[in-house]
């Protein structure tokens, strides 16, 4: 049973995918310079919003067992965040692969409303690259 219901779901998935990749890139830069520096509450709040949206898509396929979002109290560092984001960007890519299919000449999203007209583009173009 496809997770995505309609075009609106596809839109929110695409938004999340871009956000996750750009955040991972930003955080990787920070982590290279200062891996042990802690992440402030503002960034953590936005990261958690992203992770909650990702969890809604991934459902039972969460990349890290027992982890759903960052706990402000434990003071995560830049490298902690990069580690988690790496798992999530990979999981989101796997989600894209399993929720698209090749029909005739193009890739399309698998939607539960039965409409199969939303093109997804070639999957490997959406893989995260450093």
């Amino acid at each position, binding site marked *: 049973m496809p997770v995505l219901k309609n075009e609106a779901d596809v839109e929110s998935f695409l938004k999340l995918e871009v956000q996750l990749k750009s955040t991972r890139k930003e955080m990787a830069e920070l982590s290279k310079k200062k891996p042990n*520096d802690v992440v402030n509450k503002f960034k953590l709040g936005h990261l958690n919003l992203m992770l909650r949206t990702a969890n809604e898509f991934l459902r039972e396929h969460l990349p890290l067992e027992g982890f759903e979002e960052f706990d402000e*109290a434990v*003071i995560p560092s830049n490298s902690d965040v990069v580690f988690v984001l790496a798992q999530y960007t990979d999981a989101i890519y796997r989600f894209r692969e399993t929720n698209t299919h090749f029909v005739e000449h193009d890739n399309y999203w698998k939607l539960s409303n039965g409409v199969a007209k939303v093109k997804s583009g070639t999957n490997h173009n959406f893989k995260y690259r450093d």
Partner: protein
Amino acid sequence: MPLIRPRLTDYHGIATSQAELDFAIPFLDEDIPLHVDPFLIWRSPSLQDNALHTQIVQAFNSIGRLQEVSADRAENLLISISECDEVGLGSSHTRTGKRMGRGKAKEILSIFTTIPEYRSEGFAHFEEIQFYVDGIGPDRISDICCNFVKSFLIDYTIDQCQKLGIPTTVSKIGVYNYKVSQVESEAVSLPYNPENQQPIIFVPKRWLRYRPFINFDDYYRSFESPEDKKPERAAVLSFNRHNYGVVKTFVAEKERERSQCANDPLFTQIPITSARASLKAIKSIPSGAHDSNDKKYEKEVGKMLASLLYPQLDFAKDQSRTEDGVLIRDLIFYNTRSNVMLKDLWDSYGSRQLVFELKNVKEVGRDHINQLNRYLSDNLGRFGILMTRNELKPTMMRNTTQLWSGQRRCIITITDADLELMVELFDGKQRDPIDVVNKKYVEFMRACPS
């Protein structure tokens, strides 16, 4: 439950940190070690403050004129305004000071008669009296100043009390009435010291300094003597009476330097470099009491912690006690309930003050935990922090969680590694160092049986 070094706000359960308030929070049993500097009121950008300064010098000059009519009245008035116990500023350990003697009052009033410039024009900065009369210190200047603006300070205090919900009671106090140049008794609603029912008046932080900007020590340093060596203090005072021009030049120079005159904060954090240096020193101190290592550890941690936890926690006192023949040192902070954890500690453990007990030991034992536990039952709510070198061993950790299960007492530990993380946060400014205490508290609660 007696508070350690109680402040008025903490006594009434008003949890606001000093950094958030406009006035200096008075202690109940001792003075705040700062003074009102009239020069700060003069150089203030606030026109209201400037008007108050004008009122201060005019009131002081009017006493000089009054002595021409009645020397006795002028002396009595000067004596009565020479002390202002209600503001609680200075260095007294009892919140009460002594008024000046008649001889000193005569000496001050004689300035108006012996120096023609003061007789004709009066003072522009009345703190210049330090240059002519011995024994006039920052506390005397401050008290005279406060008495002249007491009417304003009373209104200010009432306003602050209404904002914060501090209880007041009607008290009769002497207020200087500048229209008739005399101190009159007035019944006003003021906060009071619950220990002796004496009225309390608040003073804005922006007026406070350790010593006046125009002060005798600076003057004496810049004093150029015609002889080789500097004369005695008394000789300088006498010289000034005959050389008004020298004082005038010094004061004019101070006025030009007014941009350098700033109020002194009630608490100053140590700089990041000092925090790093202290951390390095702490890590290099071996555990144990050998070679006074425990004292070195306590000194460094004490210096650091007050800064790291500011402004969420106001430092109250470091104190020592002896238990089982062992000297134990701890640091006490006022719980200002400024974040969720601190509110929780107040509500769940009755912690109106937080205790950090310092233990320079390699391994915390059952005795150490019991010592802190016994101490908590006496004074400080049911939450305590052990500052020590290493994490607790599993058996000791179990001991603390059992204390929580059995008696709902919470003892957490902060180690060298946590202190290092606190310094990182202090340096990086991305999170508050107190978040490390929260982290340890959350970890402890998760380790407790649900």
